[in-house]
């Protein structure tokens, strides 16, 4: 049963986890054969911005060598066949240009969210 995951939560514990754990779990489920689609909304649309760079953090003599690479992770998810959409107005309201986003993702108008939800038998909101 194809599941639409709506991802809203953003930058919640991404440094500690070195991932966004919701994006991550979708990669893991896809690897296990899940049928998934993702809609990014709210602040999570910022995950599509290619220029994100969380590298270089140190805590004393501990250095983070694997910072989260959220845009790459979403690109990898798309490459695995997960349809990735984002709410167009949420991008625009945050002053993000479409040219800043990774390739292969589709805008969805806010007014079309219900129709997108209607096309999926199962909907999860994260």
């Amino acid at each position, binding site marked *: 049963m194809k599941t639409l995951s709506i991802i*809203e939560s953003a930058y919640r514990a991404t440094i500690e986890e070195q991932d966004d754990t919701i994006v991550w779990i979708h990669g893991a489920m896809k690897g296990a054969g899940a049928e998934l689609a993702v809609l990014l909304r709210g602040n999570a649309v910022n995950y599509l911005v290619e220029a994100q760079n969380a590298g270089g953090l140190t805590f004393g003599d501990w250095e983070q060598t694997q910072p989260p690479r959220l845009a790459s992770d979403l690109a990898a998810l798309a490459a695995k066949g997960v349809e990735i959409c984002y709410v167009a107005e949420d991008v625009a309201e945050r002053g993000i240009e479409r040219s800043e986003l990774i390739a292969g993702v589709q805008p969805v108008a806010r007014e079309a969210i219900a129709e997108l939800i*209607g096309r999926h038998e199962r909907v999860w909101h994260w």
Partner: protein
Amino acid sequence: MTRYLLIESRDPFDSSDVRFCCDLAQQLVAAKNEVTLFLVQNGVLPARAGARSDDLTRLAGAGVRVLADSFSLRERGIDERRLATGVAAAPLDVVMDALADGAKVIWH
């Protein structure tokens, strides 16, 4: 026609994103679906008559069944007899009923 239960746990005093559930409920009911908005936790705060409850009343007028978790209401001292127009108190069983009946249930 599909049944939807949207669970709103957030409140407009703390989160502007309550718009998401309101707008979604409006879109879904306009598309002739059966829609329930179930308020839980602080999500019941706007259910108090006189609170920021216009959106809830408007949704009820549009055909959305707007319910507020009885326990959450009692926990916050909100009198079930003094809820905003269009809002009714209901037990959490409504959520389990919807899950059991195969409705699309979305937690916000």
